[in-house]
């Protein structure tokens, strides 16, 4: 399904999305020098669902995800998150919005000078008024949730790849966000760890109602977590629907992607 390449009328563009839409991108464009990475991307994601953005390397998936937390600003287009224009926020308003979004980085991005416990306490201590005892209880509960409480005193260098992802996930949810962004959540993991991390993502949606947006090219992970899928190619969505819809697509790129 090709994306419309022309922007909407300004009056319509300024209207916020409906209340059940937690994320909406409208005609998003982003270039780095002469490299036009996003070429008019639009999407809507409903509350409490897991959306998966599929695509090959260099298709613009990571760039798209970074716009949702304003790690990048668009050259053109709108980014709506929780009913607010994310791309226009600055200062304290931006920080406040970011606190409602968790981000699982591809490498885990744990602060390597801190232990697992300190990684989480660092964030809790700065953004909550909890006492040290309450913070400890929240951290232990969250580490229990990813089944890695025993790793609290370890440094990131002492963890395996799968453990880093799970700790990264625990850190991402420590402030109880409404939205979680997953940047290649299972890349580089063995199939058992892929299942483990993917099932955690599903549980976050089912048990905590967290909306997920994942970018991946791992089909096992996508099979487990996807409610709605988007296929990005050279900065444009060329197909969207359920994962089955994408599998059944006649588009040659999708047939190649799914190995048929």
């Amino acid at each position, binding site marked *: 399904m090709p994306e419309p390449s022309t922007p909407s009328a300004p009056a319509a563009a300024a209207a916020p999305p409906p209340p059940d839409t937690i994320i909406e991108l409208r005609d998003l464009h982003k270039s780095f020098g002469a490299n036009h990475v996003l070429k008019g991307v639009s999407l809507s994601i409903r509350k409490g669902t897991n959306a998966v953005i599929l695509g090959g390397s260099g298709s613009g998936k990571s760039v798209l995800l970074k716009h949702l*937390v304003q790690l990048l600003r668009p050259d053109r287009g709108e980014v709506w998150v929780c009913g607010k224009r994310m791309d226009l926020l600055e200062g304290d308003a931006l920080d406040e919005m*970011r606190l409602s*979004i968790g*981000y699982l980085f*591809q490498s885990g*991005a744990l602060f390597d000078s801190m232990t697992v416990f300190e990684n989480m306490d660092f964030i809790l201590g*700065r953004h909550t008024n909890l006492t040290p005892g309450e913070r400890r209880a929240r951290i232990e509960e969250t580490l229990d949730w990813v089944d890695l409480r025993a790793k609290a005193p370890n440094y990131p260098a002492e963890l395996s790849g799968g453990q880093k992802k799970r700790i990264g996930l625990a850190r991402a949810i420590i402030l109880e966000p409404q939205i979680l962004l997953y940047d290649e959540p299972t890349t580089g993991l063995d199939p058992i760890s892929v299942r483990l991390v993917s099932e955690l993502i599903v549980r976050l949606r089912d048990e905590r109602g967290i909306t997920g947006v994942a970018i991946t090219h791992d089909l096992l992970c996508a099979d487990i977590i996807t409610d709605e899928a988007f296929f990005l190619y050279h900065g444009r969505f060329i197909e969207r629907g359920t994962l089955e819809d994408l599998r059944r697509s006649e588009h040659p790129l999708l047939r190649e992607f799914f190995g048929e």
Partner: protein
Amino acid sequence: MERTGELALFTVTFFRRFWRPPYEGRELVNQMDEVGTKSFVLTAVTGFAIGIVLSMQTRGTLVRFGAEAILPSALALSVVKEIGPVLTSLVLAGRLGAGMGAEIGSMRVTEQIDALEVAALKPYHYLVITRVLACMLMFPILTIWTDSLAMLGGYLESVLASGMDYRVFFNNAISALRFHDIIIDTMKTGIFGFIVAIVSCYLGYTVRGGTREVGQATMQAVVISSLLILLADVVLVRLSITFF
């Protein structure tokens, strides 16, 4: 030119943000420890060695003119006014420039700085402002320490070479110095500290790519900081001569 402009903007950002919250007091103390306490041995050895060498070199020349008695004064002036501040700053640029460039650069390429950003933890405050302030505060203290060790080295050399009495040595040395020599020439190292930290943090903070680029940023941090220290010294000495 583009990188110079970016460095200028990075520096402007420091002045716009350093007085605004959040105030990372605990991290500032950590960085002062990292910059200061862990550099005491390095700067002590540097100062002690340079004091001995300067004393030996100067003595030979002064003896030829029968002016050995002014050795303590000459040593004090050269150490306090120029060699101490510049050498301390260059040694620290090597240690800290490389450390900051590598640490912050690694954090950038492993997305730790992005992680700070999305967790609303203001990485510029946490990583850059603390390091710059720590260097500005600790460079003068370490310079006084280095100067003191250099004078001690010079004194020990004088005792061994000519049996000079410590009262004669230190009275001569101190009487040669004016108060503002000590203050101005020591305080200028606060500016050198600023240069080392802001350049190294900038190169680490803006690194793109992988370990190779981090290595390049580390090397550039040391080279550029050292060159800027020497250039800034020319300007600051000229200004101090003009105004003091």
